[in-house]
């Protein structure tokens, strides 16, 4: 299979233990995988961040006894339970897809990275158990026991993402196995689990969860605010959600910088694609906008800032940055996709951090919410924008890894199923996700339309 030019790389490559791969670009399967992930990940952000948010409000209620806090915590936990259910089913689809779309990836490497999913299973269990106890336990368990049952939900939300991200980190920076004669031997599952990409991806994704969930929830209350609903209940909803998001957003820039430095070190080709850098360059510039020309291997119509890329990636203006042409064309990812996604993420990230800083400064200096209507419109826009940043981040990571499913070890085309009728499956999935999306939207609207009194059976507005 390997031609002469790539023989050196091929020594490390693995073809898969099942054999038979008639789909050279695996486009159908990749589309299906990307669609399912793009549905699951935003939902999961609520699994990460919402429990901490409703537990915080619950804590306020326990301290003050104010029914508005109780109504809010109860309402949020009910929404979280429904979103959790949708997270469960969309996550199940993903688990099936691992086998249905990438049987040879699983057959070849399942024993290397599977451990993380084993741990993941446990954390999902804990989450499912305690979220049910918590939500159905309102007014039925003792106040103390009830609050305590919320804590495992927060922990398992973290543990769940820890394990999936460990797998993704490993796919991007594989270690913990040996390749001999194109076969995988000596798996070291613990090494694979605690791979070098885990830390930055986990922190970045975890914070992203707070940004996405925080801004989306805050957006709902910001729109209520603009419509004049400014009682204690709505105000608390806005302030709590916004505080979580506002604290997370500026931090994300620092973490993002760390992620970039890690990518520069472990996946230089991905970095080159993110920046559209053709030739290996000393003191490389950073280019805004424009598009990458794959004939000439350079960015056309972009705005160059000299030395900035070397500075950002290696914190040294004269550092050498590896370019795309250092590897043969068949080993390069689709540059424009990756680059556009990356720049969108960074742009939106900067904007979100700005909103966060405005909010935090106003709150800190003047102990009140910003007065400008513009601010509330910005918060309403921040929710959808953070979703876009999230997906763009994943496109950067995943498409930037192409053509490898396991970086520099196994090609996507060697992992894919031999099925040739995936279009049907894709069409069905699109329909299913439209149904789910519509249903969730309908549900949230229904819930927000219900007055908070229905939660506690007592007046909460003052």
């Amino acid at each position: 299979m390997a031609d002469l030019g790539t023989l050196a790389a091929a020594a490390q490559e693995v073809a898969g233990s099942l054999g038979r791969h008639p789909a050279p670009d695996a486009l159908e399967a990749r589309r299906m995988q990307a669609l399912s992930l793009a549905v699951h990940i935003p939902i999961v952000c609520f699994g990460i961040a919402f429990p901490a948010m409703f537990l915080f409000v619950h804590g306020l209620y326990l301290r003050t006894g104010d029914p508005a806090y109780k109504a809010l915590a109860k309402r949020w936990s009910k929404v979280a339970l429904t979103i959790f259910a949708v997270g469960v089913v969309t996550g199940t689809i993903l688990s099936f897809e691992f086998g249905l779309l990438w049987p040879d990836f699983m057959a070849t490497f399942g024993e290397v990275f599977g451990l993380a999913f084993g741990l993941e299973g446990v954390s999902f269990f804990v989450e499912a158990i305690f979220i049910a106890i918590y939500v159905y336990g309102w007014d039925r368990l003792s106040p103390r026991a009830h609050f305590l049952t919320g804590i495992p939900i927060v922990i398992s939300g973290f543990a769940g993402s820890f394990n999936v991200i460990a797998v993704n980190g490993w796919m991007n920076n594989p270690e913990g196995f040996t390749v001999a004669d194109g076969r995988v031997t000596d798996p070291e599952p613990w090494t694979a689990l605690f791979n070098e990409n885990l830390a930055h991806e986990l922190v970045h994704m975890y914070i992203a969860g707070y940004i996405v969930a925080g801004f989306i929830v805050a957006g709902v209350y910001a729109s209520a605010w603009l419509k004049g609903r400014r009682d204690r209940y709505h105000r608390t909803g806005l302030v709590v959600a916004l505080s979580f998001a506002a604290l997370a957003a500026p931090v994300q820039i620092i973490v993002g910088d760390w992620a970039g430095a890690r990518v520069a070190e472990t996946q230089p080709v991905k970095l080159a694609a993110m920046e559209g850098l053709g030739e290996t360059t000393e003191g490389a510039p950073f280019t805004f906008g424009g598009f990458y020309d794959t004939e000439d291997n350079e960015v056309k119509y972009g705005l160059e800032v000299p030395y900035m890329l070397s500075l950002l990636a290696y914190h040294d203006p004269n550092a050498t940055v590896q370019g795309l042409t250092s590897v043969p064309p068949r080993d390069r990812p689709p540059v424009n996709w990756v680059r556009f996604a990356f720049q969108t993420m960074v742009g939106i990230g900067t904007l979100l951090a700005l909103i966060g800083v405005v909010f935090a400064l106003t709150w800190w200096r003047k102990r009140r919410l910003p007065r400008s209507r513009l601010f509330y419109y910005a918060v309403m826009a921040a929710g959808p924008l953070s979703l876009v940043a999230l997906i763009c981040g994943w496109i950067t990571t995943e498409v930037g890894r192409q053509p490898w499913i396991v970086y520099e070890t196994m090609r996507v085309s060697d992992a894919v199923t031999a099925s040739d009728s995936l279009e049907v499956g894709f069409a069905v999935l699109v329909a299913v996700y439209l149904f789910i999306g519509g249903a969730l939207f309908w549900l949230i609207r229904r819930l927000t339309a219900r007055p908070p009194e229905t939660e506690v059976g007592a007046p909460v507005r003052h």
Partner: protein
Amino acid sequence: MLAEICLGFVVLGLTAYAVLGGADFGAGFWDLTAGGDRRGGRVRGMVQRSMSPVWEANHVWLIFVLVIVWTAFPVAFGSMFSTLVIPLFLAAIGIIFRGAAFALRGQAATIREARFLGAVFALSSVLVPFFLGAALGGVASGRVPVGNMAGDTVTSWWNPTSVTVGVLAVITGAYIAAVYLAGDAKRAGLPDLVEAFRTRALGAGVVAGAAAIGALVVLRSDARPLFDGLTSGDGLVAVIVSAAAGVATLALVLTRRFGPARLTAALAVTAIVVGWALAQDPYVLPDELTLEQAAASDATLLALVVSVGIGFLILVPSLWYLYRLVLQGRLDQDYEPLDQRFRPQTASDRPRGRT
């Protein structure tokens, strides 16, 4: 040894899923067959109330099984999922519809919404166990060879054994669900529903027994090695235990002792899953791949056994806490017939005292 422990995890997970998840699917079956809004409202209300706190935890057993199989027996996993792509994809779609529709039905505001979501929930509750059962039937009857889609994508699951196992999965789920729901209705003090589910349990029990006997006949002609395994040695013991537990359950339901009936019903299912594993020993994929050949390397198996073992230390007390709260009725919501919210209350809606 490590491989056997991992196989043990798979059998444990499948059993738990069949007993607990199966009951949730079975509840969907009774939801589907409950009749019109008014007549079926009471049954549906009970289904909604019983399933709500537990179905998500019950569902995780399926994920648990998948994860163990792909880590401990990766080649078998890849082979099964590529050949059995059709039933598994359909099951996955069914799972989405089932879960989402169930979660949303609780928030329905009009009878039309409730009706639509209920139909989606109930219909997929019947299809999912059928397709999962059909996929297992394909494995058990030796129709899944090693390789990337090496088997026939249609006959691997559309064959006498698969269809039989699929139907059996639907019926046993319905049986267990009726037993559980009768117990829950008794706890809720709703004698009319106790009777309704008791009748259903007795009916489904008789049908399940007949279907099990029919299944043996089918296996004899279609999957002889599996049949031989189930009718000799340890396999036979398991089948007998299962049959005895099934009959005992019927007797207990007949005499209205639903608590013990829960346990014997679970035992009947457990025995049959274990019997299947014993019957195809030493193969994971019959005639293709033995347990020995399918197993991942020792380092992986050891890591998996250790981490799942530690996980169980957290999991078992958590599950115990959940089911204890549920069985004590501490998480019970107020009972209301499903169609209640959409029409004025009448005298027949109110609970009629405790039993």
